[in-house]
């Protein structure tokens, strides 16, 4: 996508996102909320990918945020809106601590550890029965944000998406862009130019994790309940990944574009063949990888011609 086309697309998308509640019914609004949630996650995944680190831990941090939000309301009586903020802070804090341990790892080692961490978080919450409610989960009896009103919840999710887009734009326009791209391209060169690699990776990991936690908080506050299987679902890792890959990585517009496309297609497929959308996700990942002979690694090491994240 060239610059002009992507600007027009971004503008159209923005106008649509803001005006939708004024003319759309409950069903399209619900679909839009869903798509925007995954879109925001796809953007955060891409933000970390710009450093060359492929995370499979989105669901883990999303779930951590979700439980931080719901438990702070149910167990500590925190106001609903504040619990969403707390979710972001908590997930960011967790990322800060584990970042010290895992950000020495690279490539598939990092990916596998993030995948495992997500699963560990799920098991911990599953087993801390007295505090977390175990496999049955937790329900918010009262104090759901906006009393669960669909229109208001739409704005809440849109706000979460706006945070992701703003952070991603900040990553693109500031020196962070130079730091992450240099680290992705060549760590030795990056060091020789004075880049403190660990510090920038930690920043990217904490910021993206905090936003994933924030979105988890928004998610539970929208539905009023959390179970380990619902909030740590592999969907929260795989769908954003497929969306970003489809739309084009290393940019903000790529994941947005991919999310709209994949979100609409899957919604249509859900009606036609239940669970068929999962097959489509699988096919998309396979096709994308097939046409990039070196697979994910190629994505990390170089940008295919015409899909350059910088100009998108």
């Amino acid at each position, binding site marked *: 996508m060239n610059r002009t086309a992507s600007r027009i697309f971004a503008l159209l998308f923005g106008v649509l996102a803001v005006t939708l509640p004024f003319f759309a019914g409950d069903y399209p609004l619900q679909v839009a909320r869903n798509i925007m949630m995954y879109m925001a996650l796809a953007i955060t995944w891409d933000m970390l990918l710009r450093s060359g680190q492929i995370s499979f831990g989105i669901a883990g941090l999303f779930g951590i945020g979700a439980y931080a939000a719901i438990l702070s309301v149910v167990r500590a009586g925190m106001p609903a809106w504040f619990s969403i903020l707390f979710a972001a802070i908590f997930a960011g804090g967790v990322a800060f601590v584990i970042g010290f341990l895992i950000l020495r790892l690279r490539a598939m080692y990092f990916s596998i550890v993030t995948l495992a961490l997500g699963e560990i978080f799920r098991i911990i919450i599953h087993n801390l029965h007295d505090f977390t409610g175990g496999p049955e989960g937790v329900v918010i009896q009262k104090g759901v944000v906006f009393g669960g009103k669909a229109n208001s919840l739409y704005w809440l999710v849109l706000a979460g998406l706006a945070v992701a887009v703003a952070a991603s734009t900040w990553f693109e326009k*500031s*020196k962070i862009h*130079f*730091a992450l*791209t*240099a680290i*992705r*391209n*060549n760590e*030795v*060169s*990056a*060091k*020789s*130019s*004075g*880049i*403190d*690699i660990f510090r920038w990776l930690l920043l990217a990991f904490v910021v993206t994790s905090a936003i994933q936690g924030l979105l988890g908080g928004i998610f539970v506050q929208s539905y009023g309940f959390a179970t380990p299987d619902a909030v740590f679902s592999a969907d929260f890792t795989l769908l954003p990944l497929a969306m970003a890959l489809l739309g084009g990585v*290393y940019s903000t517009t790529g994941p947005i574009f991919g999310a709209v496309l994949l979100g609409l297609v899957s919604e249509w497929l859900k009606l036609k063949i239940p669970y068929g959308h999962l097959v489509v996700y699988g096919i998309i990942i396979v096709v994308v990888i097939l046409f990039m002979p070196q697979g994910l690694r190629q994505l990390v090491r*170089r*940008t295919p011609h015409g899909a*350059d*994240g*910088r100009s998108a």
Partner: protein
Amino acid sequence: MIKLKTENLTKRFLGLVAVNKVSFSMEEGEILGIIGPNGAGKTTFINLISGIIMPSEGLIEYKGTDITYMPAHERARRGIARTYQLIHPLENLTLIENVMVGSIFAKGHGLREARTKAEALCHELGLTGLDRDTSRLSIFEIKKMEIARALANEPEVLFLDEVMAGLNSDETKDLIAMVQRIALERHLAVGVIEHVMGVIRELTHRVIVLEAGELIAEGKYEEVSKNPRVVEAYLGGGTV
């Protein structure tokens, strides 16, 4: 004035001693040649000084400060810059952005200021078409870009690791003049690893010779090139 010195600098990789008790120093304004046969430990030596790998023993002192175990990025900020034997362009950044990186992170300049400084550097080195992707650059341009990126650190000590390799004779001549001018104008201490002896003879004030990790000779090129030990180690007999 001594900018940089090492004392008994040693690096062992398991059983192999890649750099063995090397002591040397570099003065401000000096262009020092670092020569020796393949596998002599020249690049390892520079890797130790720039902090890409850490020494097993010994001392590295930069402007009177012990930097032996300082992280590489910190050394870059304090003024030690280098290029690499194998070219390392940041391929997802444009030519000008590659050069900006050093300015942004080693010197902490803002993006706008870094760009202005990078443009001036590129102009000085005769680089044009600054918004091109690195995949569209010639080898000569990439070499100059890597020198510009190192200079963007505003270094006091600069190492060039086989920067002339792969260039034709006109380009080599250009680059020799360029390096001499840069060193003179900035009062740099420059360390040059090079295999082409003509380049070493023209460019350097002094050379050190490494063989099997040890410093076996140092002095002016004319003296060192007649040193029997150097002739044997470096060329396996014959003349230079």
